[in-house]
């Protein structure tokens, strides 16, 4: 305990001193945008009909990178489920959740988190947010509900991991369709403004950006919820398989 306190104070002192030495050597803080950032900030409304520069870069200027990243997420999930392949999803023999206090407060908090996550995902082309923060926030609800309500109650209501993986597959198919549809007219894939409308009935939807946000939200939320269900299979189910094999 004594040595770790001394080492910690020495590290803090070294950090403060080293930064002073760097300033004396001539390090300067950046004060202006780079050229590429300036182009994105000035031209985002004209090229992508979206006042949010980060969403425009993620889904329009660099849309192909995001499609590949969604594929990487999908394959990582498939690999994880393949490691756990031998046992079916099942609950405990004597299911017991936590106390009534935890269950009631979790119900209130889950409602609030679900509302906020849908708002973040659907409004992602006008304000900061998008599909990834919204989906991760909804996945936190799933990770909370599994230990507090016990896995058996989720399986009895019909929320199995197979169904969640099916929802995820449907959302990814819809995402792929939105990306591939412009090929019909002879344009490249992941085209935004030359194929999709920028505004519908006076509402700005920024072409394909809002559709991508919604489908990515469904895909991320259901994928991480399936992960939580797979993690909570009890150990007895695996013991027989391991002893046999």
């Amino acid at each position, binding site marked *: 305990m004594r040595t770790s306190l001394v080492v910690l104070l020495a*590290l803090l002192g*070294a*950090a*403060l001193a*080293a*930064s*002073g030495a*760097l*300033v004396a050597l001539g*390090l*300067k*803080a*950046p*004060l*202006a*945008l*780079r050229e*590429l*950032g*300036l182009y*994105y*900030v*000035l031209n*985002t*409304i004209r090229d992508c009909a979206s*006042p*949010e*520069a*980060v969403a425009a*870069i*993620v889904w329009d200027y*660099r849309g192909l*990178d*995001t499609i590949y*990243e969604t594929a*990487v*997420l999908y394959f*990582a*999930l498939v*690999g*994880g489920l393949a*490691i*756990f392949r031998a046992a079916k999803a099942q609950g405990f023999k004597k299911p017991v959740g936590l106390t009534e206090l935890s269950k009631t407060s979790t119900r209130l908090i889950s409602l609030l988190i679900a509302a906020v996550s849908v708002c973040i995902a659907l409004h992602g082309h006008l*304000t*900061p947010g*998008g599909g*990834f923060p919204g989906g*991760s926030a909804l996945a936190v609800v799933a990770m909370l509900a599994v230990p507090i309500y016990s896995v058996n109650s989720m399986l009895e209501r019909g929320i199995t991991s197979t169904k969640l993986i099916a929802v995820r597959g449907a959302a990814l198919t819809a995402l792929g369709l939105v990306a591939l549809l412009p090929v019909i007219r002879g344009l490249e894939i992941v085209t935004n403004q030359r194929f999709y409308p920028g505004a519908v009935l006076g509402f700005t939807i920024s072409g394909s950006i809002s559709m991508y946000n919604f489908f990515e939200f469904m895909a*991320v939320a259901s994928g991480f919820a399936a*992960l939580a269900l*797979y*993690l909570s299979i009890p*150990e007895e189910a*695996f*013991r027989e398989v*391991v002893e046999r094999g």
Partner: protein
Amino acid sequence: MVEDYVFALIVVVLLINTALSIYGIVRRRSLVKKLISLTILSDTVFVSIILVGFIFKYPAVPPVYSTGSPEEAAFLSQHAVDPLPQALVLTGIVIGFAVNALIAFAIIQLYRLVGTTDARKAVKVLAEEVAE
């Protein structure tokens, strides 16, 4: 003057964090501790990428339009932070979580098969099994 000092301080602290997390990956024996250090390393790299896009002016605003008028475009070209590093980090966070979840699944399965999460003991047990 003060901005230069704070910028240098953040750079030095991120370097020390990187060094500590690499020490944690290499020299700690538990596999779960290695996973925790790996998450700290990737988070530190993400923060340093965002630091590259930050400008030390007052006020520094995120690159979001509210009206779309040309005056706002002129204001944002002087005071907005760079949007490109943020887009790259958004992708990176989600990929990092998926790969770390895969590593966590592998650690649990290894514990079921070998009986320990200590890296050196696991190597010994697996070497004996191969020798049989």
